[in-house]
């Protein structure tokens, strides 16, 4: 898929893609959606704990990118900008949801009908069942810890963002980010004691 400049659009960086989209190239936007939809759904799902909500949030995030494309400046990385939009929308959605109804644990274990990207390619029914159980257990533990810790732990340990990127996304000082990540991990380890003991 060659771009307007004759360059293969798949070889463009995220920043080049958004600038191309700012100039009116809708294919660049499609490429952005393709690159970020799964990443964002995984990130938001781990944060919100509900697949449908996370999908809605990601769609809203991508619509925001479409409508506010001119607001992006090459000050930060595009990934930082899009994660910031996503986490803000997720927080807003979560707050609204908390106001409407109390959080139900059954929502968090509703992973049966979702697609999973299991790292182990060798499919065995026992492993698949164990992985699903483990995933449910860890997600339940994640949902139990404080939102501020959860957000940072997901960014660092699941999405593998650097500390600098986390600082840019959250706007928090580096020291605060590191201490919150450690506290989150500590709490999560306490909740998952039984898994490690096994």
């Amino acid at each position, binding site marked *: 898929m060659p771009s307007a400049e004759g360059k293969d659009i798949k070889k463009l960086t995220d920043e080049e893609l958004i600038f191309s989209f700012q100039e009116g190239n809708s294919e660049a936007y499609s490429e952005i959606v393709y690159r970020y939809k*799964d990443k964002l759904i995984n990130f938001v799902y*781990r944060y919100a704990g509900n*697949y449908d909500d996370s999908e809605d949030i990601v769609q809203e995030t991508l*619509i925001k990118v479409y409508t506010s494309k*001119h607001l992006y400046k090459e000050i930060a990385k595009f990934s930082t900008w899009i994660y910031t939009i996503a986490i803000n929308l997720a927080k807003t959605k979560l707050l609204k949801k908390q106001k409407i109804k109390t959080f139900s644990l059954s929502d968090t274990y509703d992973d049966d009908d979702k*697609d999973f990207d299991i790292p182990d390619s060798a499919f065995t029914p026992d492993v698949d069942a164990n992985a699903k159980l483990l995933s449910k257990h*860890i997600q339940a533990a994640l949902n139990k810890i404080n939102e501020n810790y959860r957000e940072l732990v997901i960014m660092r340990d699941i999405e593998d963002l650097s500390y600098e990127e986390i600082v840019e996304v959250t706007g928090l000082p580096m020291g605060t980010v*590191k201490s919150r990540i450690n506290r989150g991990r500590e709490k999560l380890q306490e909740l*998952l004691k039984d898994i490690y003991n096994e």
Partner: protein
Amino acid sequence: MSTDEEKYKNLRNQLRLLPRMRAKKNFDSRLFARIKELENAKHIRPVQKPDKENVFVNWLANLLKPSLVPAIGLTVVLLAAVVVYFSFYNKLNQQDVKVSQEISYADKNGEFVIYVKKDGERVYDETNREITSADIEGSTSTDYRAPSDVSAETIIPKTNPDTYEETHDKLDRISPEQKFEMEKESKIESDEIKIRSKGDDGIMKKGNFNKEEKKDAPSNYIREKANDSGTLDDENNINPSQEIKQQNDKDEEDQKETNRLAERKKASKKDSLKVKDKKIEGQDSIEK
């Protein structure tokens, strides 16, 4: 990798091994459908770069925030007060200054007249003479403290009868020599009166003084006396013809004295003329 991350290595591995969530197959189609829907509904408006007009509109919108309304209201009231003061009250003060057109004068009856002259107006007094500020001595049209031309009333200071003599002596400008002479004269007069009242033999007699006085008294005095008491005593009854004679005698004596004085003056004049003639003759002789 830091020590903290090594400490939670197992946990981190567990988190990384979590199954990755994927978007549904119809995710893209649903997303673009929503975008199209929004575009058709014209909800999506491309965010324009802020130009100068938008900046001004945004500034105005920020200025008219509900939180700033009380402050803006107060400012408007203060501004209005300042404008009203400088436009209205200041003019009033200036009008006060314009009263410099005031002209004051006294008319023939001595009444004090204050007249406020309008711009370009001429003021005339009772004799159709134009009055200007220059007519008033020691005053100008703007001089409010200038003395008016009304004749000042004589103010008689209230004196205490107890202290009057003391203050009078202090204020007396008569020299001691003059005072001495005056006292001397008054003594002589009093001595003369005493001599008259005692009579020829030097003994004080009842009614002597009154008789003398009555003899010298003119007919008017007698009439007044008669009017005061209503009747005249038989003893004091004087014939009017005698009275007229006495008065005529006195008049003759006075005339004689005046004649004598006139003669003396003439003689002194003649002497002075003679002296002058002699002087002139002496000068002529010296010149010769």
